């Protein structure tokens, strides 16, 4: 076999990327990750736009995470302009974000990743071999979308979430419908924890990366980053994440102390704050356990959504006009948890409320360093295995990180 490398397009991930396996004779000696998404230059696009346009544009970074991008951007804008939202708006947003979490995790688990565990080639394989599991997954996914749509007006690029509030407050009947749907699917979601954690793992355990997550607010929300050793306040988060441009990737790179790649996302969130009830599912917390973390988070999200719906219903839904922002110079940063991990939006506005600087840091760009390291380790662990086998496992490994490359290269 010739020397050289072969690039395979990554499939069943969001966005465009590839894994390059470098061969020397018959052996695979190296593996590299390429994020080949076309940059849209969002940070540059946003400059010059009025504050109320920022969330509408920024959510177009990514469809799967559009709700959380929108909410992040709203939070950053509101911070910059000192807008205080009502409790109802906060709860509604939180519910929408949980809806996004449910949709994204269900999509990943039941449509994109499950085929790896069942040895089929994608949704078409599931339709042929596991139609019932697929249908169940789709039901859960649909629920996530229903939540996002109920609050945001649309499952993708929700438009009903505005600076200072929401356009139309959903009706009690709509929330009661959500309540029923959540109740109806709760058992299935619980059952899927057992199903997913019982799936046969093909991946070897690999070294763990230091974890980082948002903390200090309701689930997925907060005002600081935490690692096992540090706490970073939101205003220093961007500096701490210290994104660097590197020649080999369109996505900027963050490393611990400039050197060590780290992990964000479901597994990082759970390792940093493991609910005791779920601890027994984790025999190891290397990246191959990410599927389990995701299904557990799916469960947590459904539970949290139920709580939120009840809170809203108990409070009684009120017609509210969005809080009017007073245009002023200002700067605001928001950190929160997207399905794939830490998401930061930061904006500066001039005295006309026009954006003069934007910074967006996304989970997959943070994770790309960890993915690259894991890939290299995998090659060592699997040394001697067939090229095809390595290829399959390498792709599966990347999928464990559920990369969202549109976000990473935005």
């Amino acid at each position, binding site marked *: 076999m010739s020397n050289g490398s072969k690039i395979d397009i990554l499939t069943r991930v969001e966005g465009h990327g590839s894994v390059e396996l470098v061969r020397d004779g018959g052996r695979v000696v190296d593996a590299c990750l390429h994020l080949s998404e076309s*940059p849209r230059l969002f940070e540059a696009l946003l400059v010059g736009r009025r504050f109320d346009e920022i969330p509408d544009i920024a959510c177009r970074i990514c469809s799967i995470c559009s709700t959380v991008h929108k909410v992040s951007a709203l939070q950053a804008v509101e911070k910059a302009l000192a807008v205080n939202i009502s409790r109802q708006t906060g709860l509604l947003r939180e519910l929408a974000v949980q809806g996004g979490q449910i949709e994204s995790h269900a999509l990943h688990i039941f449509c994109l990743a499950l085929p790896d565990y069942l040895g089929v080639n994608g949704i078409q394989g599931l339709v042929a071999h596991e139609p019932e599991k697929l249908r169940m997954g789709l039901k859960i996914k649909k629920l996530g979308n229903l939540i996002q749509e109920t609050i945001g007006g649309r499952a*993708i690029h929700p438009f009903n979430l505005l600076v200072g509030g929401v356009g139309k407050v959903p009706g009690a009947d709509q929330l009661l419908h959500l309540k029923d749907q959540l109740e109806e699917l709760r058992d299935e979601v619980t059952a899927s924890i057992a199903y997913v954690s019982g799936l046969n793992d093909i991946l070897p355990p690999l070294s763990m990366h230091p974890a980082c997550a948002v903390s200090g607010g309701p689930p997925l929300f907060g005002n600081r980053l935490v690692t096992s050793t540090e706490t970073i306040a939101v205003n220093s988060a961007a500096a701490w994440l210290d994104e660097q441009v590197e020649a080999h990737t369109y996505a900027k790179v963050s490393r611990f102390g400039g050197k060590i790649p780290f992990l964000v996302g479901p597994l990082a969130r759970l390792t940093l704050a493991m609910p005791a009830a779920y601890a027994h599912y984790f025999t190891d917390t290397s990246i191959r356990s990410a599927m389990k973390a995701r299904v557990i988070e799916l469960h947590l999200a459904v539970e949290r959504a139920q709580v939120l719906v009840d809170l809203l219903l108990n409070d009684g839904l009120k017609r509210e006009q969005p809080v009017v922002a007073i245009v002023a110079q200002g700067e605001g940063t928001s950190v929160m948890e997207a399905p794939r991990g830490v998401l930061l939006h930061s904006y500066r506005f001039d005295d006309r409320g026009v954006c003069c600087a934007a910074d967006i840091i996304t989970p997959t760009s943070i994770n790309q360093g960890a993915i690259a390291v894991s890939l290299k380790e995998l090659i060592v662990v699997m040394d001697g295995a067939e090229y095809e086998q390595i290829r399959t496992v390498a792709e599966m490994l990347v999928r464990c990180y559920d990369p969202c490359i549109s976000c990473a290269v935005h």
Partner: protein
Amino acid sequence: MKKMRVAIAGLTACSGCQLALLNCEDELPELFEKFAFHFFPMACSPALLEGEYDAALVEGCLSMPHEKELLLELRKRSVHLIALGTCAVWGGVAALRNGEDREWLRQQVYGHNPVASETFEPLPLHRVVKVDAAVTGCPPEKEELLRLLAGLTRGALPVGIDYPVCTECRMRENLCLLTERDMFCLGLLTLGGCGARCPSLGVPCEGCRGPVPEANLAEALEIYSEKGFGRITVLDRLRRFCPEWKL
């Protein structure tokens, strides 16, 4: 019946149009039974461009040389090439600052490191290949995608829409946000088909479906300016989704 061979590809975009299809949860199993998605990297492995396609659905605009190659390849192999979503049809959000120095924009993000220096000003698909049909929207409506696919199985392409968002907004008997509330609603100039999604919830149309045919920009500008929105503001807004709006 023989399955139709369909390719679904994404160029410079957010994957939202593809996700809109994957969001057809109720119909998804049936879709995968009716269609052979031979090239659909987002949902199927492996992603190999092989043989011919009855249709290629392409999301996103073009901003990189490799995308041009992929698009030309898809055009060559497909009976119908369909532009999926606002980016593919009009340019979309990525084309927001078209007309400005691309290299300067790139440097705002990547500094002097020459990363992604091959990027060029985002183009809608029709600027490079012949497009047989278009489904606009950011994202498109699920219903439109399903109708498109159902039509393709019968050899039919979708019938174009020629009315603005206002038409559907009025049919839904909504309060007019522009005339009654002086809000900055772009429904007058924007292609309909979304059922006036946004104004129906009291949120002004942001123009996500691109220009309606025969848009009367001159008169609209008059009306907007009466409401306090100047020409530059209006054009800036319109260009959020379609860079080709001109005075």
